[in-house]
């Protein structure tokens, strides 16, 4: 079928060289403009331009820029729309992958995790970079060689038939949808903090910028916007890490400052653990936890008792004339749980929350200590250590395999001119990603350093402004509460949700307001770039794999593009709707996605490339078993995906946390794929196709559309 109607990838070396020169010029210009804009804003802040203006300009101008890049790249050419004309040089594809990959979870979530869980957060650093090795060794070059359009497309071509393609499509859609919800949630957080827009309004502005891009220009527009977004997100993040490193240690390089920062943090942590006022706070939370434990012993009786007490109180105050008091008493009665199951749920949550707070350092693990518990301590400490280590390894395993099977990331490898460029773009991408990931620990240590030294121990009336600003806007994310009534802030009395740490970092460090805006703009770039890639991946899969390959095989390619645009709008609206229900947090939304991808797409791609004998029924069985194992374990275990129909959360199996269910799903998928493949007849055509994929020269890959 004829595909290209307009000139696409420049083929010759001279044309490639000229094309690269154009790109270099354009992005150099962009960087200059960014620097100039930031400097002008710094001057305007000095002169006294209202903050709201600075913030709005900082958020709207980049979004307008992304939208205009998107508009300039508008296309209806299928080759351009689906795979950017396969003309993206390796370095730029590397940057685009970097932006595609680093979402709000990397930009905002990761540093917060490292702050909150210490070494535990490293599972994300290792998982989200380590997976790229598997991609480079076994997946990216072969995907590019197959030269198709989507990941389900590869499964369809490799295994034949419709089922592998359809299962791939379903998994791709579910993963991308959950992932995109996390991004839109991040967009809402950023815009509502910095501008006067509310959470909802922020979502729609962000969504608008994102849609202009992917809607009018598909992969081509998304690619060139992502390069711009990568640059701004990296610059903002590194600026933050460098500022803190220099401020705290006098060393410019965050990676070199880390050791000193950590030692100062550890020193201060020891002081705080021994501080009697911190211990008072811990004792208070323990009493609260015990109160909930007592209530949970007999929920019905406790609830009846509390209801009776609240009613009595209401009757008492009803006699008095103080209306405010009556209203408060009525509210207290209404606030009681409706029935016993609700009460059990609420009190269990409150108990776990209090138990987590009733630890030294406000429940934060010591920054330098790997894992909780103690391998040489008593039985309980040994158990805690084992559990903590198992959770780390299971999570890391899922993140690695999930990375190597993440559809929106892998689709980018179709966009390079050659297989060699696909390989090269993995190296560039990983380098660009690692630049941020090895700065995140330093930033986390720096923030801990700042909070422990400069915030804890202040009198409540002297607390910095950011605490009040944030807690007024999002009381669930940031709060202070003088538990022991001494008028001084203890670490245990301060709560900061890990998602807001990076956004608040410039204020925590006392930087100019313009830097807060730059960091927010970087976060917005991270969210928008990933969301763009995700929306496009889902829409393309729906259009190419469902509409074209399954339903209307005679549809012209231009109709596919039109269909993809409709699907894009639809997915965006669904995602925005889900986000408006206010999900629980960025990372808890994203981790299950990695487990699902690890147990389905990853084994299907890996076996598809390395094992010729893997066949249609094998992979159908493998992907189904992998998906079912993972989902069932998550649904039974509680956590964000717990499904009440399956009963109360069960005991964990081998200490595996629900979000890391992929550690069970992946082996199950591999095992069933191998067994079923060996039990069913060989597929000669598929074997020939893989042989060509592995060794054959150009243009010899046989057509395997069924």
């Amino acid at each position: 079928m004829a595909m290209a109607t307009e000139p696409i990838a420049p083929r010759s070396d001279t044309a490639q060289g000229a094309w690269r020169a154009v790109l270099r010029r354009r992005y150099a210009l962009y960087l200059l403009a960014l620097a100039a804009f930031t400097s002008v804003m710094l001057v305007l802040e000095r002169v006294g331009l209202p903050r709201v203006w600075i913030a709005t300009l900082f958020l709207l101008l980049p979004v307008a820029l992304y939208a205009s890049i998107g508009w300039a790249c508008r296309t209806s050419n299928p080759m351009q729309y689906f795979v950017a004309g396969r003309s993206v040089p390796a370095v730029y594809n590397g940057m685009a992958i970097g932006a595609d990959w680093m979402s709000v979870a990397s930009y905002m979530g990761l540093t917060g995790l490292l702050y909150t869980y210490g070494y535990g957060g490293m599972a994300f650093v290792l998982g989200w970079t380590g997976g790229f090795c598997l991609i480079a060794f076994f997946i990216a070059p072969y995907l590019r060689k197959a030269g198709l359009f989507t990941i389900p497309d590869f499964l369809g071509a490799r295994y034949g038939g419709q089922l592998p393609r359809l299962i791939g499509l379903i998994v791709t859609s579910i993963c991308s949808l959950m992932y995109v919800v996390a991004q839109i949630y991040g967009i809402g957080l950023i815009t509502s903090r910095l501008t006067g827009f509310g959470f909802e309004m922020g979502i729609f502005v962000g969504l608008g910028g994102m849609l202009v891009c992917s809607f009018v220009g598909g992969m081509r527009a998304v690619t060139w916007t992502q390069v711009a977004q990568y640059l701004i997100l990296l610059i903002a993040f590194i600026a933050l890490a460098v500022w803190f490193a220099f401020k705290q240690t006098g060393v410019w390089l965050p990676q070199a400052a880390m050791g000193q920062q950590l030692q100062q943090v550890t020193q201060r942590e020891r002081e705080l653990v021994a501080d009697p006022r911190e211990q008072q706070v811990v004792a208070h939370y323990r009493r609260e936890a015990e109160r909930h434990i007592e209530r949970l012993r007999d929920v019905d009786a406790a609830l009846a008792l509390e209801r009776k007490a609240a009613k009595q109180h209401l009757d008492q105050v009803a006699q008095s004339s103080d209306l405010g008091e009556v209203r408060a008493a009525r509210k207290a009665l209404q606030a009681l749980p409706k029935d016993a199951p609700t009460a059990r749920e609420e009190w269990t949550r409150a108990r776990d929350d209090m138990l987590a707070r009733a630890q030294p350092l406000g429940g934060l693990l010591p920054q330098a200590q790997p894992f909780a518990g103690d391998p040489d301590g008593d039985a309980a400490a040994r158990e805690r250590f084992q559990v903590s280590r198992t959770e780390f390894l299971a999570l890391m395993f899922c993140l690695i395999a999930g990375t190597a099977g993440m559809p929106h990331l892998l689709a980018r490898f179709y966009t390079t001119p050659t297989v060699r460029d696909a390989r090269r773009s993995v190296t560039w991408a990983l380098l660009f990603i690692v630049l941020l990931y090895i700065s995140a620990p330093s930033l986390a240590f720096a923030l801990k350093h700042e909070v422990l030294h400069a915030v804890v121990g202040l009198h409540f009336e002297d607390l910095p402004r950011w605490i009040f600003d944030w807690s007024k806007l999002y009381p669930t994310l940031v709060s202070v509460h003088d538990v022991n009534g001494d008028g001084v802030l203890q670490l245990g009395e301060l709560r900061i949700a890990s998602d807001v740490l990076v956004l608040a970092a410039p204020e925590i460090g006392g930087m100019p307001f313009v830097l807060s805006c730059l960091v927010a703009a970087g976060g917005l770039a991270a969210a928008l770039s990933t969301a763009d890639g995700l929306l496009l991946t889902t829409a393309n899969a729906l259009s190419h794999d469902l509409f074209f390959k399954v339903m209307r095989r005679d549809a012209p390619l231009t109709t596919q593009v039109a269909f993809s645009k409709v699907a894009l709008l639809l997915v965006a609206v669904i995602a925005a709707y889900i986000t408006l229900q206010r999900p629980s947090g960025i990372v808890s939304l994203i981790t299950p996605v990695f487990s699902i991808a690890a147990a389905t797409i990853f084994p299907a791609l890996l076996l598809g490339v390395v094992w010729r004998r893997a066949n249609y029924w094998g992979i159908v069985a493998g992907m189904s078993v992998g998906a079912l194992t993972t989902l069932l374990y998550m649904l039974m275990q509680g956590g964000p995906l717990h499904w009440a129909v399956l009963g109360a959360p069960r005991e964990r199996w081998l200490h595996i946390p629900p979000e890391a269910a992929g550690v069970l799903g992946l082996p199950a998928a591999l095992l069933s794929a191998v067994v079923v493949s060996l039990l069913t007849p060989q597929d000669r055509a598929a074997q020939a196709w893989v042989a060509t994929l592995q060794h054959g020269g150009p243009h010899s890959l046989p057509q395997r559309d069924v």
Partner: protein
Amino acid sequence: MNANEHGVGDDAARLPGGRLALALTAVWGAITFVPPLFARELGFEVFGLPFALWVAAQGAPIVYVLLVWICERRSPDFESSPGDDGDGH
């Protein structure tokens, strides 16, 4: 050769650059999984950080970049493919 006669490992080794990829995977697996397994034991200091922490924060990510780079440089060229000349498949 009958594809039935060899298993997954043999097939992987037969990929272009397959032996290299398997060797790199072994190095990758060692640096990824061993330090977390023995994180408490590997507590001696490197650049002011406990070793396992340093590996996770800087060492392993940098080694990953090197491994991927070696794979890119040393893997045999195989070119492709339908689609990249603009003809579609």
